[in-house]
């Protein structure tokens, strides 16, 4: 039982990381209804470009983070205007095919440019352990949790409290009515997609400073992010946090008390359970879609 506090702490830290990496998908899949299989690749691009700006351009971590955010916002905007827009309003399948193709393109493009070697993103603070009683964490992890929570709150406020956020919500509820009311829905779609990409990339860079960046990490991130979004409920930030924490803690407990070897199974067991008993997710704001 003395291991419990550390397992719980590990689970909560992982939970925030999961919520953070799923945040972009909450917007793109949860709100925009684009089943984005390239989500993990945007996360990967964040890590790889974070490595590039800190290693080659010599920027410190936070300036690098801002450069990566600006770059990935531009990438996201262009992807939406030139690719996603072509399949908008044609149901989910063309979007699925498009994003699968995009993810293959991005992985292999990255492999071609930087190769398969893992890359190290220099962290913002030193890596040594910190002890709170029996619980060990690192400064870097605490920092990532802090930045993660700030990003989640920031994204929530953006959607709920700003004109752009109101335009987004209007557009996704009823695109026709929104454009009749004078909202430039094309821009709103692009802005949302850009925001989703940026959030994915920021989490990618933040977590690459703790683990490492590598061209082929995207697949697992996409899978876990879908798990988090489905657990939490489509388009809900509170849901993404709850889903992330639930997944993180469940994995930590399973890994801690049962076996590490099959820990990736847990997420899918949770998804099956939630689809059986509460298909709209824990916090869905659109129960009618269930």
């Amino acid at each position, binding site marked *: 039982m003395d291991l419990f506090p*550390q397992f719980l702490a590990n689970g909560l830290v992982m939970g925030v990381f999961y919520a953070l990496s799923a945040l972009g998908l909450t917007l793109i899949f949860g709100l925009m209804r684009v089943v984005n299989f390239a989500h993990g690749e945007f996360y990967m691009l964040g890590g790889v470009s974070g490595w590039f700006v800190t290693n080659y351009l010599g920027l410190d971590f936070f300036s690098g983070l801002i450069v990566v955010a600006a770059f990935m916002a531009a990438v996201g905007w262009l992807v939406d205007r030139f690719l996603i827009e072509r399949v908008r309003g044609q149901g989910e399948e063309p979007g699925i095919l498009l994003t699968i193709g995009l993810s293959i393109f991005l992985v292999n493009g990255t492999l071609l440019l930087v190769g398969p070697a893992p890359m190290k993103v220099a962290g913002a603070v030193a890596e040594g*352990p910190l002890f709170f009683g029996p619980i060990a964490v690192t400064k870097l992890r605490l920092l990532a949790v802090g930045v993660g929570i700030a990003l989640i709150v920031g994204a929530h406020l953006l959607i709920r409290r700003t004109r752009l956020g109101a335009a987004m919500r209007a557009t996704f509820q009823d695109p026709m009515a929104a454009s009749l009311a004078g909202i430039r829905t094309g821009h709103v779609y692009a802005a949302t997609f850009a925001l989703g990409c940026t959030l994915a990339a920021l989490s990618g860079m933040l977590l690459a400073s703790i683990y490492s960046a590598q061209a*082929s990490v995207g697949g697992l991130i996409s899978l876990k992010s879908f798990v988090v979004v489905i657990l939490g409920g489509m388009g809900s930030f509170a849901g993404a946090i709850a889903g992330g924490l639930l997944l993180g803690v469940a994995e*930590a407990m399973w890994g801690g008390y049962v076996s*590490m070897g099959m820990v990736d199974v847990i997420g899918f067991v949770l998804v099956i359970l939630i689809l059986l008993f509460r298909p709209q997710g824990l916090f869905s704001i659109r129960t009618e879609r269930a």
Partner: protein
Amino acid sequence: MRNVVLGGLLLTGVAASVPAQAQDTVRIGLVQPLTGSVAYNGKSVVEGARLAVEEMNAAGGVLGKKIELIVEDGQCTPANSVNAVEKLVQKDKVVTLVGAFCSSATAAIMPVAQKYKLPLITGVSSKASLTEQGNPYFFRAAETDALMAEAFAKILANDLKLTKVAYIGVNDDWGRGGVEEFSRDLTALGVKTVLTEYFDHGATDFFTLLTKLRAAKPDGVFVAAETQDGSILVKQIREMGLDTKVFGVGSWATADFINLTGEAAEGIHAAVPYASSMDTPRNQAFVQKYQAKYGIKPGKYGAAGYNALNIAGQAIARAGGTDAEAIRASLAKTSYEAPNGVYKFTDKGQAYGFEAVLVRIEKGEPKVIASTPVDAPH
């Protein structure tokens, strides 16, 4: 013989895209993971292999022709590796196969090589049982976990004063094999096992596993992991504030591992069949050429690719033709002078005679602290 084979293939339409003319190169197929969590290590094998082919071609090739290396991505998975081999055999008509990387993948392509009666050499896969399957076409130009454990268990137990050891391995045939062999040999020396855990390829967070490790209070931890997983794991062991001694198998004695792991790499021990700091003239020449070509010192896998291709090339040259049976027969008579000793094969196709080393990472360099020739298994 070839015309019969070609005719058969054309009839089935499989080879429709390949002109049925005599090849003007000798083709060797190489299956390695080029994507996924061991892609980086697979790439090192390919680099070493290309260097070997370049050298042989510069020296006039074999059978009066140039050697052509055809590389396919097996992704370290059994299914993809089998597909890659099918493609190399059916479409590219290679005369010898080299691969795959992961033991699970190699186990899957062994019967395919046997089906097509093509020699298969692995320079990497170290699960002991592969050479016990009686596949006459299979040759392993690598150490096995059992041989490494036998060679170094005693040195490790004495030097590190081990009494209680935890074992952590990647969840595949290689990781499980390494953990089994080392725990068996160390247990025989009176070292207690306090924890055995496996993690999946590509796992990034080990804090839960390390929490258990901390509670088990071992004075040494054995790790079987490759560059990416291993570097993150070793880093997190230190991040958890654990100062237990770390030793293991995998590509640890490489510049990249040390660079990724940073400070945390200091003082860890690795049992490897090759380290760039090995002190032989052949190795110094190899390191120099490798560094000139790739800008980095060769590690275990660069050397593995280099050795496997040289063994294949020399066997084809000795066979005097591309007939698979002749190549197989001449492979069995291999006596290849590698940077790390002389490779010969037992009747089961297991290499022996080369040196294996135990290195300690000191000030960012792998320092050889013990060296022993790998004997034929008994």
